[in-house]
């Protein structure tokens, strides 16, 4: 492989090394997620004042917005690692891409549900076909498609490459969908309300939001570490290093 890759990154591409690395990282990432989550939620639910327009209902924002950002962040990670999986056939890239998909789908689902629960008291409707919500729904379908396609193959590595291809198509598609729905909304004059048009946020409300963003990112890393470790055990089942782990751990 090319010499611009540092040795530690190269070593990380080896399954047993990554297994150990992820095992070490995970507790720290989870600890950070829980700590930041506790601080962020305390700041958002208890410390921050009620919004003068939306009362206490706006507090859903502290889980809705970080989840929305994560749904897109994870998709980007999935796209990049999928690209690496396709072009360089890196086993680890395949694992990262495929195991990110369920986490991303989870965040997308949370975004849609919490958005709906926020929309009902605020704008009187559980759902509206504005660009952001519709794009988020399409994003959920993309995640489900990637997960479904991955599991449709007998050969996991082949499935990972096919699903990565689909993910990359999706990366191109999501902005297209977003733009077309914006255009479509201007055509059908009905719902031109920009539902999430909050302007500037008070500092009291901003910092819990940012802390929650950090918490969800750390959670993603933790969850990915655990999922990747489990997936490596499944993929490398016949290898010695996995056998040693299986012998060391007594199954419950």
């Amino acid at each position: 492989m090319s010499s611009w890759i540092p040795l530690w990154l190269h070593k990380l591409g080896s399954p047993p090394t990554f297994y150990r690395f992820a095992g070490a990282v995970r507790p720290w990432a989870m600890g950070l997620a829980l700590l930041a989550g506790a601080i962020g939620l305390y700041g958002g639910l208890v410390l921050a004042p009620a919004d003068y327009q939306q009362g206490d209902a706006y507090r859903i924002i502290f889980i809705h917005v970080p989840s929305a950002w994560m749904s897109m962040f994870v998709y980007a990670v999935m796209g990049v690692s999928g690209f690496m999986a396709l072009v360089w056939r890196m086993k680890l890239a395949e694992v990262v891409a495929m195991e990110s998909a369920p986490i991303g789908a989870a965040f997308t689902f949370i975004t849609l549900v919490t958005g709906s629960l926020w929309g009902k008291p605020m704008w009187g409707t559980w759902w509206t076909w504005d660009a952001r919500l519709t794009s988020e729904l399409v994003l959920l379908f993309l995640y489900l498609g990637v997960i479904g396609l991955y599991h449709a193959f007998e050969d996991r590595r082949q499935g990972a490459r096919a699903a990565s291809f689909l993910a990359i198509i999706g990366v191109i598609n999501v902005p297209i969908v977003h733009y077309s729905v914006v255009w479509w909304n201007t055509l059908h004059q009905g719902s031109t309300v920009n539902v999430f048009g909050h302007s500037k946020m008070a500092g009291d409300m901003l910092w819990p939001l940012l802390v929650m963003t950090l918490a969800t990112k750390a959670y993603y890393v933790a969850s990915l570490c655990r999922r990747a470790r489990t997936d490596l055990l499944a993929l490398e089942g016949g290898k010695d290093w996995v056998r040693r782990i299986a012998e060391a751990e007594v199954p419950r």
Partner: protein
Amino acid sequence: MSALQHFLAMGGYAAYVWPAYAVFFVVLIADSAAPQLRRRRILRELHGRLARQAARARRAPPSSATPTP
């Protein structure tokens, strides 16, 4: 109203705020638990496979046994 009741009531929007937070936690806890369950299943199957291989190796004459990958 006590401070706790005031907090739980969420200014009258409790029916929306608390289910939203519940969904957040339930989904992420499920996401955390799933790989753990899968890992246990994988290790269980691996143990079974190793036990079967060991039993087969004991039964077969050791000189003719080729190392299984």
